[in-house]
């Protein structure tokens, strides 16, 4: 019964979406306030309906209702409740419901909190959002029904893949979707602006909070996915350039570029056409990612079960949504007011450089991911494009960007003094040099690139806070004045500092892990001790260990330095009888500046056990940096300027000639 209610709610949501997609749009075209006003309650209703469906599905999983097909395929009565719930999105059908839940959440958000938007814009934005929704509701109802019944119901389910029975992985999809489905809002704003024929500073102000919120979620989602891979896959890898990882990374790169180009639109009324295109492309990358993961077109460890019929449907959605919006762009964008000028050295130029490099990086990742497919489709040889390619091409694109990140905020608008800016950064340069020298001292045999990279990381972190120090005139004015300035500094400034600093931390972690990871693979017997990067690791014992739906073995290691106890770690190997699968539970102890990482392997039959021990320098910095980035984003988001209404549109006095497109 509950499942049927949920099912009906989805069907209703499709109807509401169809209405919302058409009526407010025609109302905006005719200036009919009543029709436009339909958008807000419709968007809210859509969200409530999808929430009902989502909760119905969740209830089916929680109560182990095996008459619902996806529950039978993906759940089992002995699973812990938290994984039964996570099972809702651990499969294709359920994850699509999560997808539209986030889509309608953002729609309802704009409907509820977008009171300061002009009615025509709001109506159009919500209409476009509903068009996307309608497409996906149709997809769900006709090809991927999550609440379909299977009769007679099986006695028990097939169980969730043991890999997915993990807290990190259980929570990673909702965060990821909040991010890359959230970019649909920027897309809707962009398309609405094209329909209106106008892009201005006010538009950029309205778009930014929604884009920033999505960006924060996506950053966190990607970081969680990476962290999950790190502690699950057993050798400390955290990024593989797998197509599905790339599918979430490309929108992140484009979204970051979008956040920065929107600043130029807002402050200088420039880069409008490009920003609109970027907003469309960011969500397009999300849609392409959704297609890649579910169509079977690419191989990936992450891919859901594939079905060509679904692939065709999603491709159709892509053609309509992306093709349609790009066509609209081709028709309407030339009419947008062209922008003001800026000098080759200026803040605008720095942001243009930012966009150039980020967009090129996103395009490179896209090309690398799709090249084998493209070559195969035109009848060429079958090749692989893997991690080595991406590492070789992505790094040189990012390096100049990271250098510029610190300098950009010191440049003034329109025309800037580069030398002056660099001089003010002498503290950061000193820090970079110090970091490089310290690295050289600690790792004299180390790769040169890593030494330079650590310098770059220090440049980023220190440079970000030097900018803040400049603004509050730290050490150049009395403390009281600095304090006063610090209190009055807009939150967005703090946000930027933290976000850029976070980038530096993550960079440091990545470099250290790539260059100086210590790995030890060998057979150990209980009582044996091995040296690991200045520590001593002793295998104490290996004993059996049972769980609610698994049986396994657990090893006990004691880690010490110079005789003093540092940590005890307990890696395990588990066997899940229902799924017939083995998993390895790594044991990680973090020392803050490094991780001790232990994995238990197989017995050699003679009392010895294969073990893998790692010393991962600065590994925690990778995810700490991501958290700092998100913290910065959230601080920016809390800036009052977004919440206390963006400025109303500039009204021109009657009779003043307007530029084309106004």
């Amino acid at each position: 019964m509950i499942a049927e209610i949920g099912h009906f709610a989805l069907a209703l949501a499709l109807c509401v979406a169809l209405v919302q997609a058409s009526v407010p749009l025609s109302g905006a075209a005719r200036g009919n306030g009543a029709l436009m006003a339909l958008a807000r309650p419709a968007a809210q209703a859509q969200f409530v309906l999808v929430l009902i469906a989502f909760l119905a599905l969740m209830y089916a999983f929680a109560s182990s209702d095996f008459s619902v097909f996806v529950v039978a395929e993906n759940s089992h009565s002995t699973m812990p409740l938290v994984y039964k719930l996570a099972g809702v999105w651990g499969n294709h059908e359920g994850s699509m419901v999560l997808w539209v839940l986030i889509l309608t959440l953002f729609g309802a958000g704009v409907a509820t909190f977008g009171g300061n938007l002009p009615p025509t814009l709001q109506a159009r934005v919500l209409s476009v959002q509903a068009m996307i929704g309608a497409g996906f509701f149709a997809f769900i109802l006709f090809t991927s029904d999550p609440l379909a019944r299977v009769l007679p119901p099986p006695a028990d389910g097939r169980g969730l893949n043991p890999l997915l029975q993990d807290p990190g992985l259980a929570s990673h999809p909702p965060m990821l979707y909040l991010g890359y489905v959230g970019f649909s809002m920027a897309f809707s704003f962009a398309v609405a602006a094209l329909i209106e024929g106008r892009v201005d500073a006010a538009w950029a102000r309205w778009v930014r909070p929604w884009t920033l919120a999505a960006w924060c979620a996506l950053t966190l989602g990607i970081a969680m996915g990476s962290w999950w891979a790190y502690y699950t896959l057993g050798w400390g890898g955290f990024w593989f350039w797998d197509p599905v990882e790339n599918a979430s990374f490309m929108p992140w790169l484009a979204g970051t570029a979008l956040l920065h180009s929107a600043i130029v639109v807002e402050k200088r009324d420039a880069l409008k056409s490009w920003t609109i295109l970027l907003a469309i492309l960011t969500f397009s990358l999300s849609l392409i990612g959704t297609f890649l993961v579910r169509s079977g077109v690419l191989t990936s460890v992450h891919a859901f079960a594939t079905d060509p019929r679904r692939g065709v449907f999603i491709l159709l959605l892509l053609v309509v949504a992306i093709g349609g919006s790009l066509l609209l762009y081709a028709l309407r964008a030339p009419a947008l007011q062209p922008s003001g000028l800026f000098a080759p050295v200026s803040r605008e130029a720095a942001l243009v450089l930012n966009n150039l490099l980020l967009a090129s990086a996103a395009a490179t990742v896209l090309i690398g991911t799709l090249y084998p497919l493209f070559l195969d489709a035109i009848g060429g040889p079958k090749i692989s494009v893997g991690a080595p390619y991406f590492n070789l091409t992505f790094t040189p694109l990012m390096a100049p960007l990271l250098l510029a990140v610190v300098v950009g905020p010191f440049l003034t608008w329109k025309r800037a003094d580069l030398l002056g800016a660099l001089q003010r950064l002498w503290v950061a340069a000193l820090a970079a040099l110090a970091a490089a020298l310290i690295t050289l001292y600690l790792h004299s045999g180390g790769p040169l690139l890593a030494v330079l990279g650590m310098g770059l990381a220090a440049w980023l972190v220190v440079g970000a806070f030097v900018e803040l120090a400049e603004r509050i005139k730290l050490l150049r004015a009395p403390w009281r004045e600095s304090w006063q300035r610090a209190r009055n500094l807009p939150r967005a400034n703090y946000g930027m500092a933290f976000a850029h600093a976070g980038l530096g931390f993550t960079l440091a972690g990545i470099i250290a892990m790539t260059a100086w990871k210590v790995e030890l693979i060998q057979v150990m017997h209980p009582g044996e001790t091995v040296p690991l990067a200045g520590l001593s690791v002793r295998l104490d014992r290996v004993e059996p260990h049972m769980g609610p739906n698994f049986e396994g073995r657990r090893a006990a290691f004691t880690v010490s330095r110079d005789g003093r106890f540092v940590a005890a770690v307990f890696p395990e190997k588990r066997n899940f009888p229902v799924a017939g699968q083995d998993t390895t539970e790594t044991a990680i102890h973090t020392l803050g500046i490094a991780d001790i990482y232990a994995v238990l392997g197989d017995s050699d039959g003679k009392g010895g056990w294969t073990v893998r021990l790692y010393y991962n320098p600065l590994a925690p910095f990778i995810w700490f940096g991501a958290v700092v980035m998100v913290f910065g984003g959230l601080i920016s988001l809390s800036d009052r300027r977004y919440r206390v209404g963006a400025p109303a549109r500039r009204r021109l006095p009657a009779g003043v000639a307007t530029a084309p497109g106004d």
Partner: protein
Amino acid sequence: MMRLLAFQLVVLLALLASPVLAVQPSEMLADPKLEARARSISEELRCLVCQNQSIDESDADLAHDLRVLLRARLLAGDSDAQAIKYIVDRYGQFVLLKPPVEPATYALWLSPLLLVLFGAAGIAVYLRRRRAQLEPAALSAAEEAELKRLIEEGGP
């Protein structure tokens, strides 16, 4: 039926991808330099029965066989390139995770550079055009002379 098959495929593939140890102590070579070479080459060879994993990462049987084979070739005195060629001769270029640089992949390898160059060029052209639009055109020599004449001749 399709769903069932598809699901079985996922379970099977997930099994292959399940995190069990890859390189075993018994596979490792005694000479650390050779072993290091073997590890770094392994990272560039695809495990053909897995989903985008290298033979260094995967625990599939075939990955094990290829790791052992690779080490045997290195012990026999092959250079890195020769050992890789041995495997490519048997499995084709698909096994290389770093695509070779050849006419079919020129577009792939050149694209990052070309993107940045074309982007930068596009921006430069755009700025130049905008500057020409916004700033008044300079006067030609004849027009300058005419203007001067008018100014000198004009007056109260």
